[in-house]
């Protein structure tokens, strides 16, 4: 069984390397947003609400979270290709739990997001973002992104398997992208102009994820966000993965 798991994971990694578009799209967009928003809005970091750490320290989690927009579509696209070619049914004839093929694709997305998050943080550091959290903080921030991203990836895979519509592969990621604009992504919550958006931000899971990342990487924002952020990421990861695993039979029927 362990050997089969390794084979399935190897195939998923090879497929991801053969089709790197989702991963590269996510990474490219993240770096673009990071550079452009820092160049365009960086001056506001002189306000005391930014805790004197510079705008890049505040903005860096946006770069990490926006990775998920592009990168989480990889597993759904890979599964969609296997379903369309009929190869998924062929794999399903092997004496291996069928959910393994789905879990492997999600794991590869999660790994891709983890590595890309490290790359985004490294670029942020090169551009001047403080990394006072050290290696442990950076790794935990990447883990947080990866866990949450695996949930988004799994939900995308579940949507594709349940509907048979390949075009849904990027839809859940798009929702994450929209949520970025309803969270304290560019300015702290107290600087968000309208009360309604402050209220929405308080309920937005990305608010806690980004606050936790800021604390882990740059030592700004409140450590109180760590517990809810990891709870949200874990719930998204487990919930999405369960939904994807339960959707396998739908493909075969």
């Amino acid at each position, binding site marked *: 069984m362990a*050997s*089969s798991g390794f084979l399935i994971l190897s195939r998923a990694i090879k497929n991801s390397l053969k089709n790197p578009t989702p991963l590269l799209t996510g990474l490219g967009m993240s770096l673009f947003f990071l550079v452009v928003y820092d160049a365009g809005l960086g001056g506001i970091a002189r306000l005391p609400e930014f805790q004197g750490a510079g705008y890049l320290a505040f903005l860096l989690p946006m770069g990490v979270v926006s990775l998920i927009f592009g990168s989480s579509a990889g597993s759904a696209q890979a599964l969609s290709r296997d379903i369309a*070619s009929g*190869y998924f*049914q*062929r794999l399903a*004839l092997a004496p291996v739990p069928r959910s393994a093929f789905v879990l492997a694709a999600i794991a590869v997305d999660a790994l891709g997001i983890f590595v890309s998050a490290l790359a985004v943080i490294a670029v942020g550091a090169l551009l001047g973002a403080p990394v006072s959290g050290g290696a442990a903080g950076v790794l935990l921030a990447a883990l947080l992104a990866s866990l949450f991203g695996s949930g988004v990836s799994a939900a995308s895979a579940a949507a594709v398997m349940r509907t048979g519509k390949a075009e849904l592969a990027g839809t859940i990621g798009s929702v994450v992208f929209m949520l970025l604009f309803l969270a304290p992504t560019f300015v702290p919550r107290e600087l968000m102009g309208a009360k309604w958006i402050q209220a929405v931000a308080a309920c937005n899971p990305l608010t806690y994820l980004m606050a936790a990342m800021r604390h882990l990487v740059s030592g700004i924002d409140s450590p109180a966000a760590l517990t809810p952020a990891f709870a949200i990421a874990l719930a998204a990861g487990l919930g999405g993965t369960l939904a994807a695993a339960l959707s396998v039979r739908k493909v075969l029927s």
Partner: protein
Amino acid sequence: MTQAMIVVRGALRSYPNGTKALRGVDLEVPRGSRFALLGPNGAGKSTLIKILATIGRPDSGSVEIDGIPLAGSALAARSRMGAALQDVQLDPEARPAEQLELQGRLFGLPKAEAEARAAELVRRFDLAAVEGKKAKELSGGNKRRLHVALALVHRPSLVILDEPTAGMDPEIRAAFWAETRRLNEEEGVTVFFSTQYLEEAERHAEELAVLDGGRVAFRGKVAEFAAAHSGEDLESSYLNFLEASRG
């Protein structure tokens, strides 16, 4: 050890659109036999084959493969069988040997054995000339050959083939049946296949079952079927049978 390789009892299967594909199928397929499943379009052949291959499930009834009940032990049953369903199922981006090796390893063959077996099947199914091509670059006939070869990699004791020779040219079809017969006669593999080519069933099956309207309308030796339906050959007997069953 039970004598039957496949035992189906009271299998019912309906689809959400209300179609009753199987209306209580009972069937036994002897171990080591070559067994043909016949029936008109919509008789339930593909539904039954998908259930045997564990791709589908019956709404009720039971199925055993090699004495293993599919309900609750599908993984163990899958390891005993190789299946090639009606639609060709290949990884379009992978080459023939790659696909055969992966399939062999997923069925538990060690790496060296999977490689050797893949090379053997590439030769047996005359795929050597296209070995460097990805599946998406193969001709329809070569795709079909690879599709069938994938069912055989792990030396299963039961091979389930749903219209395996559809789209094959006569030469390849002859080679396919020669290999199937060899597997059956030399390795004792039970071969269960559906076909629309009645001359194939007549020539290559020892026994057959005819599905009609989701039920087994006949099961027995090929010669018995011909005798029971007063035809000169299987095809005329089958046409007589269909005419009689339609009233």
